[in-house]
């Protein structure tokens, strides 16, 4: 079986980003999607702190401490970018002006419920940030995550066990094993990795799967886990 690694999941999600879209990428894994945007498209990357048109990470010599994204990383601006205040930024989000948000998740339910803000770790205070705003109000919510937890439990479930971020919001899930749409009839597999049978995938999934008639093969070009500049320089800056 040729499961994708974490960066390959973001590569696959990035290939579906439409030309001209206004896109918000969540903290953690999703932000890496910006490294794999198709070269033939032009998009506006919105960051919840008010950056409209975020560019690549700043090189060390170009760091500007007043120019940061939602992950507190020092970034650059794309041509045509601007920065607005937080109330205006969330009006943009709440008002439905974000075409697509790609978020990480702990759990997704077959009705599209999303749980991604409270892992229920004892002893740590909660952090919700802008996750609820994005999940409830972006025009389309897509998720990138590993199919199962480190303990092997499915992250795709009939109902979420963890506290919800928003109800019925997720439209598509990209995992290391499959691309799955959330439909009124539940999870529909659009792509599956080589060497994994539909039965095997079902066994790793906590809800019933159906398979699209034209279900394809999920694959991505080789990407080293350390290739992304975000993975290298982003790690030191990872914070709320």
């Amino acid at each position, binding site marked *: 079986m040729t499961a994708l690694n974490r960066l390959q999941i973001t590569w696959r999600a990035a290939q579906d980003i439409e030309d001209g879209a206004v896109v918000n990428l969540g903290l953690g894994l999703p932000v890496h999607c910006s490294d794999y945007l198709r070269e033939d498209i032009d998009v506006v990357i919105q960051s*919840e*702190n*008010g*950056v409209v048109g975020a560019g690549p990470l700043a090189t060390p010599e170009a760091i*500007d*401490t*007043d*120019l*940061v*994204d*939602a*992950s*507190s*990383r*020092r970034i650059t*601006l794309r041509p045509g970018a601007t*920065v*607005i*205040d*937080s*109330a205006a*930024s*969330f*009006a943009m*989000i*709440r008002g439905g002006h974000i075409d697509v948000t790609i978020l990480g998740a702990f759990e997704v339910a077959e009705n599209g419920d999303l749980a991604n803000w409270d892992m229920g770790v004892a*002893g*740590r*205070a*909660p*952090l*919700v*940030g*802008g*996750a*609820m*705003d994005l999940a*409830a*109000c972006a025009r389309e919510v897509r998720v990138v995550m590993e199919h199962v937890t480190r303990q092997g439990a499915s992250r795709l479930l009939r109902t979420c066990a963890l*506290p*919800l*971020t*928003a*109800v019925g919001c997720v439209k598509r899930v990209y995992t290391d094993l499959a691309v799955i749409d959330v439909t009124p009839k539940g999870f529909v597999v659009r792509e599956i990795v080589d060497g994994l049978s539909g039965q095997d995938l079902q066994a790793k999934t906590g809800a019933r799967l159906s398979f699209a008639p034209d279900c394809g093969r999920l694959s991505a070009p080789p990407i080293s886990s350390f290739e992304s500049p975000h993975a290298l320089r982003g790690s030191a800056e*990872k*914070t*709320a």
Partner: protein
Amino acid sequence: MTIDKRVATVEAALAGVPDGATILISGFGGAGFPNVLIRGLRDRAPKDLMLVVNTATHRYSLTHELIAAGLVRKVVCSAARGHERTLSPFENLWMANKIELEMVPQGTFTERIRAGGAGIPAFYSPVGFGTELAAGKETRRFGERDYVLETAITGDLALVRADAGDRYGNLSFRYAQINFGPVMAAAARRSIAEVRAVSDEPIPHDRVQLPGVYIDQIVVAP
């Protein structure tokens, strides 16, 4: 009378901040934290404060110093988790039930403050419906969608960081420094700005991002 909101020192600007005050503090991701005013507030040490701040602990903010000094009764924020493997001062107090937390989705946080400064007592938002952060709140259906009633946030004092100011209290910000500054300055009865520089000449009309109407005092903190 000549309008002049410049104050010579941080100590003078913070004079009279009482115990029990609700204090709004700007800043996000390392940009726009009024760290000189925060440290001045810690030195002045008013007690039983309620802080309205996006993150209870951030590596580039000094907010945690107010919490560690035991000056804070309650924090209203969207992020309370520390960024180290060990617990933050906030998390330690929170675990011991010695500090209160109100967790608010970030867009609701900023809109509640905006409403506070704009004379709107409450508003309906779709965010958080069906989640535990909306538990117990009034809801209402408009059209095909359910909304949660959220109430405005106002404060006694706002501390904001900007790039440049003038004697009228007009402010301009650099890039992402602006974040919560404008809404917080409007929502507090009294607002203090710390700026990199104050010009003798007024800021050019079309460069003012926050009118001085919202600022009461301005101090230079390069």
